[in-house]
């Protein structure tokens, strides 16, 4: 099992995780998620991403460890941009490799859902020349909680 966790200012490209995850026939399935800056019908010109250096990498590492304990993965790649990002560019990439596709799909969705609600990133949007902080979405909390219900029905921290 290999893992790559990275916070960077520069751009992301799909070929990077694709090449990095290749393992000469060990894996049969790679699922990659790319999150991109939506322009909201031309309203949003750019995003600015702030994070908590140190804690970010540690939280992402913990999320990937949790994914590895739930699914048989051969590799997991998480790369997240910070700084200013233009509409249409990638903000985040999560890519995982596994022998079979169901594990890869589920683990990739799991990592994204937890990243959205736990990794210390904050974004503001540039709209009409003003930077406005983005509010967290209820639906993201629910998506993360759905993976984490324990036997008592409580979502553990």
């Amino acid at each position, binding site marked *: 099992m290999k893992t790559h966790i990275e916070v960077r200012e520069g751009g992301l490209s799909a070929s990077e995780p694709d090449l990095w995850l290749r393992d000469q026939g060990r894996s049969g399935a790679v699922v990659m998620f790319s999150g991109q800056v939506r322009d909201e019908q031309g309203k949003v010109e750019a995003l600015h991403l702030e994070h908590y250096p140190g*804690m970010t990498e540690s939280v992402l590492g913990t999320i990937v460890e949790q994914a590895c304990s739930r699914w048989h993965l051969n590799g997991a790649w998480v790369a997240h941009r910070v700084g200013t990002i233009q509409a249409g560019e990638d903000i985040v990439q999560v890519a995982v490799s596994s022998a079979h596709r169901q594990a890869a799909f589920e683990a990739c969705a799991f990592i994204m859902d937890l990243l*959205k*609600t736990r990794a210390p990133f*904050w974004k503001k949007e540039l709209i009409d020349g003003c930077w406005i902080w983005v509010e*967290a979405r209820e639906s993201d909390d629910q998506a993360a909680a759905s993976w984490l219900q324990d036997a008592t029905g409580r979502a553990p921290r």
Partner: protein
Amino acid sequence: MMVQVRFFAALRERAGRDAIQIDLPEGVSTVAQLVDWLAETDVALAQALEATPRRMVAINEVLGNEDSVVEAGDVVALFPPVTGG
């Protein structure tokens, strides 16, 4: 006891500060008590906290909650709900 409190994102901007070093009096031992004490002793922070009612907390870079215990030397980070990805 001395702790460091860090602020991020909208809360950092509203507080006008990245971080503060504070000497907590006896009886302030949880995150909730720390936040109340900050609001009582610093008007600017009180306003920043009030303007940011939904908050998350990390102690030494691990997510916690209102009941988490704060100890000497801890780094307590307060921030709005995260919005990455």
